[in-house]
């Protein structure tokens, strides 16, 4: 197990390195550079070329890439061109908000999606099944921005129950310091973006759970368990669900990665001060160091999380370790 983990950990390096190189190349392909973006319509050609020189943009591409990788190797992500602050500081100030939202949405998706799928599987063919699957269909096909706007108009404007935008105090901080009113405020801010971001995953998970469980319930050992006269609850939870869980864990792991990256739209709609918005803004402004740093960090978080999922997988299913 330890060797497996070590090997997987070592594989992270090429993954992150390729992410760095690919991002670098993609940014070069974008029309417009940071000088143009920052100085804007008012810039004169002399100012532009002076600025490009200042940023090192006039050097050969390979030299730029080499210098960049050398800096990254020393954990130096450079400074933001537009904001003139260290990139790492920017990322660290926005990553927690994104992690909070992504985690909350995965928790909601799992806590609601898996039970709904179970319910649909157990009541297969009934109104409950059809209703749940209809909701799931809606969830996978509804655009995030549309759902977000609808929720804001209903819960913030119409009913005035929840705030329309923004983030409260960091939830974890509020909970740890025991400040209940702050925690409650954080939750109120968190609720709509979480539901918006979770809806797709929730729908996917419920469909997946229903399918996986129905599949497993057809297995011989389930019939045996039933034949032994075991209570239906024991059959479903102890025998069937554990095996049905394998594909679900994998999907949840991937979904967390998607939630990190896919939070961009949700963050924009709800004015959530996360990393997704930072990256989108940085791309718009051609703030290369920020985009590069953020992609690297995201790639790292994503890879680490997948590693965690794989390890969990290996833990649940001993066959994985020996491949």
């Amino acid at each position, binding site marked *: 197990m330890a060797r497996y983990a070590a090997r997987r950990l070592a594989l992270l390096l090429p993954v992150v390195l390729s992410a760095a190189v690919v991002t670098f190349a993609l940014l070069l392909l974008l*029309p417009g550079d940071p000088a143009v973006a920052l100085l804007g319509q*008012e810039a004169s*050609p002399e100012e532009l070329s002076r600025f490009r020189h200042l940023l090192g943009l006039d050097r050969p591409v390979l030299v730029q890439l080499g210098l960049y990788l050398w800096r990254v190797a020393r954990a130096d992500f450079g400074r933001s061109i537009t904001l*003139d602050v260290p990139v790492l500081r920017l990322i660290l100030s926005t990553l927690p908000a994104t992690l909070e939202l992504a985690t909350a949405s995965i928790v909601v998706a799992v806590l609601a999606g898996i039970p709904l799928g179970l319910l649909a599987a157990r009541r297969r063919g009934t109104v409950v099944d059809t209703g749940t699957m209809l909701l799931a269909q809606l969830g996978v096909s509804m655009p995030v921005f549309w759902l977000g706007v609808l929720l804001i108009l209903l819960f913030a404007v119409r009913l*005035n129950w929840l705030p329309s*935008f*923004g983030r409260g105090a960091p939830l974890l901080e509020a909970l740890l310091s025991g400040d209940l009113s702050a925690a409650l405020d954080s939750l109120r801010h968190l609720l709509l973006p979480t539901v918006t971001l979770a809806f797709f995953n929730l729908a996917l998970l419920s469909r997946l759970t229903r399918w996986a469980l129905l599949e497993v319930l057809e297995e011989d050992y389930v019939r045996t368990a039933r034949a032994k006269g075991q209570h239906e609850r024991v059959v479903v939870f102890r025998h069937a669900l554990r095996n049905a869980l394998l594909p679900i864990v994998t999907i949840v792991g991937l979904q967390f990665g998607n939630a990190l990256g896919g939070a961009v739209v949700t963050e924009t*709609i709800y004015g959530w001060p*996360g990393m997704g918005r930072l990256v989108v803004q940085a791309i718009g402004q051609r703030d290369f160091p920020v985009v590069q740093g953020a992609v690297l960090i995201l790639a790292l978080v994503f890879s680490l999380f997948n590693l965690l999922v794989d390890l969990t997988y290996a833990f649940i299913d001993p066959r994985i370790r020996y491949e």
Partner: protein
Amino acid sequence: MTGFRMRLLPVLAVVVSLAASFPVGAAPAGGTLRIGIDVDAGTLDPRLANDTTARRVIEQVFDGLVELDPQLRPQPALAESWTQVSPTVWQFRLRPNVRFHDGTPLTAGDVVFTYTTILDPALRAPLRGLYLPITKVEAADDRTVRFTLSAPYAPLLKYADMGIVSRAAVERAGGEFAMKPVGTGPYRFVSWQRNSRIVLEANPDYWKGRPKLGQVIFHIIPDNTTRAAALEAGDVDLIHSPLSPQDVARLKSSPRVRVVEMTGLGITYLNMNLADPLIRDLRIRRAIAHLIPQRTIVRQIYREMDRPATSVLLPAWSGIYTDEITQPGHDITRAKALLAEAGWRDTNGDGVLDRGGQRLALTLRTHSEDPNRVQIAELLISILRSSGIEARLEITEFPGLVQALLSGNYQVVLVGWLGLVDPDRGMYNQFHSKGSQNWEKYSNPRVDALLDEGRQKADPNERARIYREVARIIAADLPYYVLTYQGYVVGISRRVEGFTPIPSGSFRSLWTTSVP
């Protein structure tokens, strides 16, 4: 499976209790005004500000030598008076006993420092170009600043609203000054949470007197619809352009909101590249102008939020604006006649005009950030196509478009100008053959002479005559086809009192604003 239902109950209970609770946090004395804005500020250093949010926050924290009133006339601010010693020398007398937020007194040295650093290329001040005619800034004494110009430059006074920074604070804070600004303005900086909010509090020692508000919070809400919804929900008290036309329509029917619409300081226009062999032909430019359904665009796409433009003269330039100058109007027959006159005919019957075996192809470019412009561009493409022009649309992000403009690599671009406080700002660099933003390579000796003359004339009648003539020539030569005068829309909660919207988008009147 009652077990599942049982498990859902606590979740429901949490949702219900959340819904029943109310926002926390007490408002400080004097009331809090919450403003919803679209982008985060890039910097809070007035010398470096390049986005509208930065300017809105900065004008609360800093004062300029002058400030522009709603009619865009310079009024005394940190300078209590000024005199034009000679055509190229201006002298500003500073108000006595003004202090920065850190308690240090304002001196002529701070003004000299502010302008000297802006003129220094090393600072990378985005508006440096506006101040280039200044050759020397010096302190005659502790309260007198003297500007020497290379040539008479009438617009200087309007650009003297640049926020004055404290030299000591800048030198103390270094690069951090942009995040911890120290000025003399009505509100002082408290905190800035990136992409979330900027908090200011009243400056009790403000030289005009203590502001009525205790606190001003700028909430950054990038989505136009969410920003409008936040105002309707009462989560913010004030929002302003850019807003989506459909949201403005909804806001107008909201009982707790007052909507104020006026013509702003921006234009949306087609930039026609005269260096392009096709566009160089005036008949082509006129034909394009005749094909544009200006009123339909204003009605259907902008829902009357923007107004149809008649020339490059903005309605906000009082005394200079006139609606008597007009560009070619919507007239498809005339357009077709002009194309035929230029030799473009459909000789092979394929629906596309051609000349000497060459098809009439045209590329229109715009940027992706503004959905209204994308919609207009799509409409124009379909109209051009149905008129026998092989039209192509190219949409990139704004930096990509600016790149194309700067390199001259385009035919026609749909884009805009903002913050045109003065005709010089709206025309000199755009149409002077030596202008830094004359990407379309327009060159007309008469226009050059007029624009040079306009810079030197301070007399309002003279300026009106000069700029009207330029506008008349531009409307005929069509390096620009000005599509709309951009609207400026403000949505204000009815509980807010004393706020006066200004076409420039300035929040200067926050000093007199109050909330119960």
